[in-house]
């Protein structure tokens, strides 16, 4: 009987010939990712092992991105604790504030290896399924435990195969596809499962687009969201001289759940407050004024996303406030060379340091009571952007967010004159 992708990856990561659904295994990751939470994790780590060295300093990855640059003494001290830990433990793969959001930096710096497990104490670790790995989120205490013993337990999950057929109309992008999927499957629809994305639309999707859809697998409750490695993956990884095994699901792999959809008629989508699965086509919204438009984050902060937004914003000045958070320094530099930053600045945009910022209300771009935002981020829970009496956060694609910023209300880019 054939095996699906998560079964193959978990077998490899646990040193077993094969694994079956429901089995509990101990998996060792290629990388364990943490960010600003590393200070807290290092304290838990000390509780577990005292002064002992980590299991493998070269498999630990830390990027500072949530409160960057530190807005107050507490955050600055937090970062200092992390730097001290990095130095003490000899951790090579440390990326200080400004390098970018952890889920962008990890693949950019060549740390995502197809066919392996990537653990991260961040729910959007699922992003790394975009390169044919299994990006599996864990908690802080678990991250400390992995630093200590190099593995943690996992139950081999059921798998859901999502086949995306058809072809995307002009202006419809990965974000619209994943919002439509989540709207269909629901916020708990893939709970505890490993999701595999298949079909011609996925085959033709860039790695950036795949990152968007795998990033948001977390919003369906999934343990992992993956696109099996293919030519697109190989091409993207070429520059890294990485040795890897192209682990693929068998052609007779078994999936406990299957979903098929055709996106040929898909219109721009929006997730309405206050749930990610509260998805409708933009055209179904009543007139919705916005105060803030957020472009960026680990979901849609890549060069292709900035290009998508810039082509809509070019020549306009926005009616609403516009916040631009490129996902990494490299993205920002490339965007600058292409003149995209000028477009954002001329439009009246507030262009920021590559970091998470407004997405989670931790630092930067908070909303005021009664305000409404449209955002390329991945969550729109009540109070998410720092104010519990905001009227709501709408999630959408970069093009929709850009067009909405121009008019001050949520519209499709194709409706912008």
């Amino acid at each position, binding site marked *: 009987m054939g095996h699906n992708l998560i079964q193959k990856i978990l077998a490899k990561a646990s040193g077993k010939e094969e694994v079956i659904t429901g089995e*509990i295994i101990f998996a060792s990751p290629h990388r364990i990712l943490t960010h*600003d*939470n590393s*200070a*807290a994790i290092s304290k*838990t780590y000390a*509780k*577990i*092992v005292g002064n*002992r060295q980590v299991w493998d300093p070269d498999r630990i990855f830390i990027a500072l991105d*949530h*409160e960057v640059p530190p807005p107050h003494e*507490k*955050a600055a001290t*937090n970062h200092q604790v992390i730097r001290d830990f990095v130095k003490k433990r000899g951790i090579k793969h440390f990326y200080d504030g400004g390098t970018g959001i952890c889920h962008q930096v990890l693949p950019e710096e060549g740390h995502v290896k197809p066919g392996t497990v990537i653990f991260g*104490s*961040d*729910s959007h670790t699922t992003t790394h399924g975009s390169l044919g790995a299994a990006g599996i*989120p*864990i*908690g*802080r*205490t*678990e991250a*400390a*435990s992995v630093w*200590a*013993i190099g593995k943690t*337990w996992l*139950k081999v999950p059921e798998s859901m195969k999502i086949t995306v057929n058809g072809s995307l109309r002009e202006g419809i992008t990965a974000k619209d596809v994943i919002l439509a999927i989540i709207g269909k499957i629901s*916020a*708990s629809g893939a*709970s*505890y499962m490993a999701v595999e994305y298949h079909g011609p639309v996925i085959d033709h999707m860039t790695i950036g687009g795949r990152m968007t859809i795998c990033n948001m697998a977390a919003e369906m*409750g999934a*343990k992992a969201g993956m696109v099996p490695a293919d030519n697109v993956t190989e091409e993207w990884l070429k520059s890294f001289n990485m040795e890897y095994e192209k682990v693929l699901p068998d052609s007779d792999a078994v999936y406990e759940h299957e979903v098929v959809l055709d996106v040929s008629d898909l219109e721009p989508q929006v997730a309405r407050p206050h*749930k990610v699965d509260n998805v409708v086509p933009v055209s179904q919204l009543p007139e919705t004024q916005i105060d803030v438009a957020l472009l960026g984050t680990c979901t849609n902060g890549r060069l292709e996303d900035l290009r998508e937004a810039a082509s809509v914003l070019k020549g306009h000045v926005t009616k609403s406030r516009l916040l631009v958070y490129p996902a990494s320094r490299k993205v920002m530099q490339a965007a600058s060379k292409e003149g995209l930053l000028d477009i954002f600045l001329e439009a009246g945009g507030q262009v920021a340091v590559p970091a998470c910022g407004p997405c*989670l*209300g*931790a630092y930067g771009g*908070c909303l005021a009571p009664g305000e409404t935002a449209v955002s390329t981020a991945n*969550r729109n*829970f*009540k*109070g*998410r952007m*720092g104010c*519990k009496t905001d009227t709501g956060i709408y999630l959408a694609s970069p093009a929709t967010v850009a067009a909405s910023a121009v008019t001050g209300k949520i519209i499709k880019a194709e409706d912008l004159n």
Partner: protein
Amino acid sequence: MKFAGKPWIFEDDDINTDVIFPGKHTYTPLTPEQMAEHAMEDYDPSFAKTARKGDIIVTGKNFGCGSSREQAVICLKYAGIDCIVAGSFARLFFRNSINSALPVVESQEAVDYVFENREKFASGEEKISVDFDSGTITILDRTFPFPPMDEQALEIFSAGGLVEYTRKKLEN
């Protein structure tokens, strides 16, 4: 392991970690007691002040969805919550609960029965009980069975949480 307590009834599904423990506090170093002060603050501002040791949360599906933040578990534990009964739990919240040794049980039937009879719990006198040894939840006149905890989860839980469990593993 047995618990009996007043149920805190949160009748919604998909109660997410942003309302259990707000994002703006997640990078501030807080003690567990300080975390408890912010518990559920964007969902039910009265909770943190009035929750008592031994209370049991009763809630709908997909409780704890969203972020991986462990504070969502810790703040509830230190606010006094001894056990959570939900229609279902989000994956990460469930893991974090096991790792922090906060007992969690899934039973949509039990939860629905509490919701149907919520007026009976309004006084705060009526309790529900959860018995992990016999695998039953007792609500008013009815009992609801639930399956035993996974062996691996039980090992971590019995050790007192993942920190203790990992320490033991390292010592061996």
